[in-house]
């Protein structure tokens, strides 16, 4: 049945050589990127690959994930079958049929069942994509073409084996239940017809296989069958709560305005993406109609790399700009500025693509190399640099929040904790109430704490997420020096942004602090009995908790605030539809707090509506930005009767 090896061998060999060459060309493009360490912690990397690629752990989070798991494992099993198909096509002697029947038989069963499952799964996937596409633009020719070829490949497999059985040529037909059933249907056909079906299916199988390795894998999103497995190996282990350190020296350039200014891992990510669209389905910017689609950003990087690759490899300049409105292959500035750095895209990506940090690299270029940014930011940048707070309020006002309370200055040896109040806590009139609540709680629990007062400076979080790394760097250095001089080791923060910056970003400056968010400390104090409430807080009604991105997703603090609420009110808070690691941003992260939301609808309104669906009397937060965004949103939704309270305020209520 097999065609003459003299015809087949050159075809298959050429196809395999071409396959290797096109993969090599792809990976050579990746090498255009800047260096980045991704080969440390090999044990953990292999584990990640096993769990997330072969175990499909993140894929299985979604309803259709199981369907993908079936296709994935069928492909793994059929890899052997297809390898044999090609090898025996070239060297007919090298066939698995030569194995003893006790091994060959079960192998055939595996191939048979895997093919049947893959066929079913491919058909289900096609129907699913028709009826419920993974995202509205998901009904692409590319996707259906790939699924059709998978289905055809499986159909051809059955055609080959069923005719073989029907013709009585199979040695171990009992081992192939699916093919045998099909053979029975073909049993009455005349031999010449069966012969032509057999050879037709063989050629179909061969052609589809060649299309797979020479077209689909190297040139479509189907490349992910190789790259996304590797991407799980190359994953980032740290939560996305920091940004890479940048060195400032004459003659350097900053950020990324061309693909070769991204790292090789950034470029590799673009080849690992299979456009599943999960990132775009969780992106607060995209959902609210802003021109940011994380999936598209990754795809544009890939297109850009392909279009500019040859020129860049020869030391030339990129023809298609990475940043701009040039269309395919370029990321629009509005998209770059729309990101709230909430990290939902990275949390959901089944194969650990890192969308958000790439946008920050592009922001770094825009701010630092071109001084090009939304005009609202000019004031912010000047205020941060001159007065070390976002509003440009005189630093001497920093200690005004405690005019009605006696507060110690921080002194190493005399006070245990530094209470790093933060800009919002010191200047924003609503957040000042939270600061007072935290101070009251600390005093009630007998904590030894002090503040930096007028000497406190902004942590610089917004600057770093907005790409103004140069000014962030200077502020971070000043803060680190101040903390070291003062002998600060333990810090309490009431803002997740200060919390994350002091804990994670300052580590790059050699400062290892024990930073504790107020919700964690209060939780500890309540659990240990050091803080005793005078009364249960009963007047807050139905209470729903909102996870701040920089506390939850970026630092995995989920239970402490919930436990605090449960202890103070006697019942656990209600959950919104999206919570914990799937929580939805308030819209103020990534420096968006200081930007107008001109495009699309408002992110905070989306979140407030989600909260209102739980019919709450109180929305509980643990971040000053979330406080502002949700309070504003509730006012806009005419739901002013619903209060927003910080966890500290809830607890302080119980101390009255």
């Amino acid at each position, binding site marked *: 049945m097999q065609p003459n090896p003299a015809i087949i061998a050159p075809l298959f060999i050429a196809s395999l050589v071409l396959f290797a060459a096109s993969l090599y060309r792809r990976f050579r493009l990746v090498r255009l990127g800047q260096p980045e360490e991704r080969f440390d912690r090999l044990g953990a990397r292999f584990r990640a690959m096993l769990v997330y690629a072969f175990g499909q752990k993140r894929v299985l989070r979604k309803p259709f994930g199981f369907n993908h798991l079936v296709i994935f494992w069928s492909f793994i099993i059929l890899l052997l079958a297809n390898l044999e198909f090609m090898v025996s096509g070239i060297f007919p002697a090298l066939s698995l049929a030569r194995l003893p029947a006790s091994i060959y038989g079960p192998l055939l069963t595996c191939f048979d069942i895997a093919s049947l499952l893959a066929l079913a799964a491919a058909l289900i996937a096609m129907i699913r994509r028709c009826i419920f596409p993974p995202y509205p633009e998901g009904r692409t020719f590319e996707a259906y073409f790939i699924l059709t070829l998978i289905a055809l490949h499986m159909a051809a497999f059955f055609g080959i084996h069923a005719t073989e059985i029907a013709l009585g040529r199979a040695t171990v037909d009992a081992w192939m239940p699916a093919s045998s059933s099909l053979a029975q249907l073909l049993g009455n056909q005349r031999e010449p017809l069966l012969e032509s079906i057999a050879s037709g299916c063989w050629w179909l199988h061969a052609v589809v296989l060649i299309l797979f390795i020479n077209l689909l894998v190297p040139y479509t999103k189907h490349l992910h069958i190789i790259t996304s497995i590797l991407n799980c190996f190359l994953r980032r282990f740290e939560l996305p709560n920091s940004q890479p350190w940048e060195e400032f020296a*004459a003659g350097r350039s900053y950020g990324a305005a061309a693909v070769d200014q991204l790292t090789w891992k950034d470029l590799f990510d673009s080849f690992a993406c299979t456009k599943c669209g999960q990132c775009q389905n969780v992106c607060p910017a995209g959902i609210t109609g802003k021109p940011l689609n994380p999936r598209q950003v990754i795809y544009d990087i890939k297109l850009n790399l392909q279009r500019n690759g040859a020129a860049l490899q020869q030391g030339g300049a990129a023809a298609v700009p990475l940043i701009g409105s040039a269309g395919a292959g370029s990321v629009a500035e509005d998209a770059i500025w729309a990101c709230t750095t909430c990290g939902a895209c990275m949390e959901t990506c089944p194969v650990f693509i890192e969308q958000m940090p790439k946008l920050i690299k592009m922001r770094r270029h825009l701010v*630092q190399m071109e001084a090009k940014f939304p005009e609202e930011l000019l004031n912010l940048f000047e205020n941060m640099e001159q007065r070390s707070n976002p509003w440009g309020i005189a630093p001497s006002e920093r200690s005004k929040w405690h005019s009605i309370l006696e507060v110690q200055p921080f002194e190493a040896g005399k006070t245990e904790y530094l209470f790093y109040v933060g800009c919002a806590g010191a200047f924003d009139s609503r957040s000042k109430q939270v600061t007072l609540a935290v101070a009251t709680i600390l005093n009630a629990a007998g904590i030894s704490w002090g503040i930096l007062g007028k000497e406190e400076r902004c942590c610089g979080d917004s600057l770093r997420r907005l790409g103004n790394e140069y000014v962030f760097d200077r502020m971070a250095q000043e803060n680190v020096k101040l903390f070291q001089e003062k002998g600060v080791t333990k810090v309490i923060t009431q803002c997740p942004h200060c919390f994350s910056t002091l804990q994670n970003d300052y580590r790059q400056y050699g400062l290892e602090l024990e930073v504790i968010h107020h919700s964690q400390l209060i939780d500890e104090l309540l659990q240990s009995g050091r803080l005793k409430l005078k009364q249960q807080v009963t007047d807050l009604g139905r209470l729903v908790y909102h996870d701040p991105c920089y506390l939850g997703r970026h630092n995995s603090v989920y239970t402490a605030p919930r436990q605090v609420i449960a202890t103070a009110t006697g019942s656990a808070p209600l959950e919104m539809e999206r919570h914990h690691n799937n929580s939805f941003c308030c819209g103020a992260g990534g420096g968006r707090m200081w930007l107008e939301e001109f495009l699309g609808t408002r992110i905070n309104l989306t979140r407030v509506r989600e909260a209102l669906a739980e019919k709450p009397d109180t929305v509980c937060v643990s971040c000053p930005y979330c406080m502002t965004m949700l309070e504003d949103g509730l006012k806009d939704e005419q739901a002013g009767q619903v209060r927003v309270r910080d966890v500290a305020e809830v607890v302080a209520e119980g101390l009255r």
Partner: protein
Amino acid sequence: MLIVACIKQVPDTTQVQIDPVTNTLVREGIPFIMNPFDTHALEECLKLKDRFGCRVAAISMGPPNAEATMRKALSLGADEAILLSDRAFGGADTLATSKVLATAIAKLAEQDEIALVICGKQTIDGDTAQVGPGIATRLGYSQLTLVDRIEELDMQGRRIRVRRKLEGRHEIVEAPLPALLTVVREINRPRYAKVPMRLMAGTAEIQLWNNQILQLDATTIGLKGSPTWVSRIFSPERTTGEMLGDGINDPVGAAGLLVDKLLEKELLAL
């Protein structure tokens, strides 16, 4: 062709307090900034540089620590920065200051033809708005104050037409070059320095000109050459007015009190 931006380093006045005993500004620990109006003057010069390719010199009279502000001017795009610094210049009023600045600008004019000198309309520490006009008068340049738009600049024809922002009206004025402009904030939005420029400015040379270079009669500059002196600075005390309610904890209640008060005084009618 040269355009000169006159800039001044001033204390960040939002952070300045007055010593109640001595009635002087408490300047200790107060950061210095480029006078906000001057940032617009410099920006206008830089815009003209972008348009005509002329050179921009930033010039300032001040103590040696004003170097930081000169570096900022360089980081934004000024081609050279000249700091006029000498003990003999210290304690100057606007008359003596404009004399030193005018002399320095005249010296610059010996090297290169000057088209324009642009100043901020006033400084936020002195608030006199006199230095710009003083320089124009001494140099015999056309004097165009309170400019909020350059309507037309004809370098060949050596004419400029500007719009002045006056109270309740605009005035369009045409004058021959060289001219001195003082500008208001509305004229432009200052740019932000790019990082490579900042790094360059950090090590660039600031030209220091003292009186040996300017050769001015010591009795006509500095404290000695200043006929005006400040006898007292004070914050006027609030003698009337009151706080109504608690706007932070009960904004609705406080607003109610305010409305009642306004109705009572018949400042508001139903």
